């Protein structure tokens, strides 16, 4: 018989305590790992709303502000970027591509983003994933609209549905409607789990067209309204955009380009590196995460404590067992080793069970989290963090088992062979 066999049989003999201990340890690991996985998904959904973009450029304001209104539809731009400046930067030799955004209008609580076809071509999120359609495709006509997945689902739109854009409101119900120029759904994007799902996309020309007859921010009186067939391609050339994404040909040029844009002569612009701002922002939002983590760690402590208690309480009734092992030739080291080994078996079973439960939960709840909360559980299932939780649990358990182990050794030394109870 091997030591591990002996440890196993001894644990089996104390079935109830063993099962409860394993359960407590397992529960704490499952909780710890689940919080981590969801945190990672949330962080990824947040910081990976856009990827492969080196700079976001807007009118000069705060760098956080630019990121917030461009990516998250929070707040508003104070100023626009003129199309001349945009074109000038766009045609620099060190720029690979750009995606212009013109913002400000909305539809039933979702924002309307005016952009060009480069958006569908270049926009990337998460780790270099591209935009794909679940139905239809990019616009053909000026009054075509493409919907984010959430918009289509929540508002029940389908291909061909007609949509009225509200003026000047991106968060609530609009007051003034562009109801004279309706848009038709030409495409619906696949769900991405990012902000992309919560917007409608029209062309810059479409945006220009619905505002053609507007003067000083208010709707035209019926007599001044331009009808759709009066509009020419000439008229809808965009004059301003709100901000744009930019990709450099070579990452090394990013900082120089950023400096150049920030010192742009014809108008005050600000270029920000989105990754930096996003992770700063995430840091400041991660209090919830810290609380969850603290709770998980407390649960881990409880799990380890229950293990300690189970081992300690079993020690007294096992004094006889230890005396038997001693008389057969077990050294005090063997006694210590046996208890530590038992702990190792306990912890290993708990870790194995926890991993199994975690994988099952993810497999079962993954799709639901995606649909309901836009949380994408990304690979790998066991990141370095999960692995370090597992190792931490194992190491702490083994360290803590030294307390009962040394206790067993002490009483074995004191008892000798005659256990007086």
């Amino acid at each position, binding site marked *: *018989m*091997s*030591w591990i066999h*002996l440890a196993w*049989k*001894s644990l*089996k*003999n104390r079935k109830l305590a063993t099962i409860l201990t394993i359960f407590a340890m397992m529960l704490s690991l499952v909780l710890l790992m689940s919080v981590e996985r969801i945190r990672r998904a949330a962080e990824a959904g947040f910081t990976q709303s856009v990827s492969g973009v080196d700079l976001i450029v807007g009118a000069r304001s705060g760098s956080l502000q630019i990121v917030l209104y461009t990516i998250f539809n929070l707040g508003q731009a104070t100023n626009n970027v003129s199309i001349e400046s945009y074109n000038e930067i766009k045609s620099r030799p060190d720029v690979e591509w750009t995606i212009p955004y013109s913002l400000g209008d909305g539809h039933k609580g979702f924002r309307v983003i005016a952009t060009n076809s480069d958006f569908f071509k270049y926009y990337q999120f998460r780790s270099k994933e591209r935009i794909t359609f679940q139905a239809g495709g990019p616009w053909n006509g000026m009054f075509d609209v493409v919907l984010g997945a959430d918009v289509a689902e929540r508002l029940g739109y389908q291909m061909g549905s007609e949509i009225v854009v509200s003026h000047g409101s991106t968060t609530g119900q609009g007051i003034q409607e562009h109801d004279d120029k309706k848009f038709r759904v030409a495409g619906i994007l696949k769900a991405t789990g990012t902000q992309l799902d919560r917007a409608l996309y029209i062309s810059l020309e479409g945006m220009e067209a619905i505002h053609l007859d507007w003067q000083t921010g208010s709707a035209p009186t019926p007599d001044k309204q331009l009808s759709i067939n009066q509009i020419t391609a000439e008229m809808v050339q965009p004059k301003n955009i709100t901000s744009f994404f930019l990709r450099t040909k070579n990452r090394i040029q990013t900082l120089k380009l950023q400096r150049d844009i920030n010192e742009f002569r014809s108008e005050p612009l600000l270029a920000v590196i989105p990754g930096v701002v996003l992770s700063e922002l995430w840091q400041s939002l991660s209090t919830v995460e810290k609380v969850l983590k603290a709770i998980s760690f407390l649960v881990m402590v409880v799990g380890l404590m229950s293990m300690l208690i189970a081992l300690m309480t079993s020690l007294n009734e096992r004094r*006889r*067992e230890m005396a*038997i*092992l*001693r*008389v*057969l*030739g*077990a*050294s*005090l080291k*063997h006694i210590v080793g046996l208890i530590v080994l038992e702990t190792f078996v306990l912890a290993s079973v708990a870790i194995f069970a926890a991993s199994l439960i975690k994988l099952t939960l993810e497999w079962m709840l993954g799709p639901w989290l995606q649909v309901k909360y836009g949380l994408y559980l990304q690979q790998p299932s066991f990141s370095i963090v999960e692995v370090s939780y597992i190792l931490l649990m194992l190491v702490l358990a083994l360290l803590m088992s030294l307390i009962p182990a040394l206790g067993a050794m002490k009483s074995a030394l004191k008892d*000798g*062979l*005659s256990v007086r109870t």
Partner: protein
Amino acid sequence: MEHALAIKDLKFSYGSNKILNIPDFQMSRGENVFLFGSSGSGKSTLLELIAGILKTQSGELNVLGEKLHEKNAVQLDHFRAQNVGYIFQSFNLIPYLSVIENIKLPLMFLKHVDTAQTEKLLNHLVDSLELKKYIHRRVTDLSVGQQQRVAVARALLKRPKLILADEPTSALDYNHREKFLQLLFQVCEEIETSVLFVSHDRTIEKLFHRSVGLDSINTIQHTPEVIL
């Protein structure tokens, strides 16, 4: 011929409580000795010293030609694993192991095990101790007498040259005691093992080669405990 046990001026005390002072005591190889003494006189203490569970404090303790008084704790553990079989008064067995697992337990502590030889001896012991029927049973299902026979089998499986028995028969009735001892002596003789058997019950002393009172070899005398 070498002694199974040779004690010279062996002294032992628990703190200030002096228990043993044995100027001179020997046991030959193959000899079965009955050592009697009243409760609390230090019989178990002496056995623990001989088994190397307790460390000697002064004097010489030679067991099977080895000087235990010169050995450290690790060497004593090793010596015990190798050479000494021990039988307790009761609760000899680990309750969550089967009979056969209990019998084979000492092999875990041996460096080299001759598997074929051991298997042969195991079969022989199981046969002669009449345990065949029970080997896969839970030990807790056995009668006390059966449990003690399992303990004998376990103590003998590693062919120790010395068996130390601490009142292993006290839970048995007289008939079973005699039967038990006959079996013990028979298997011990076959593998040339000496037996040092301690008890305060002298009804069985005539079955041994020699009977010795601890009081007669120990200069520290105990006032017999008054049992209330």
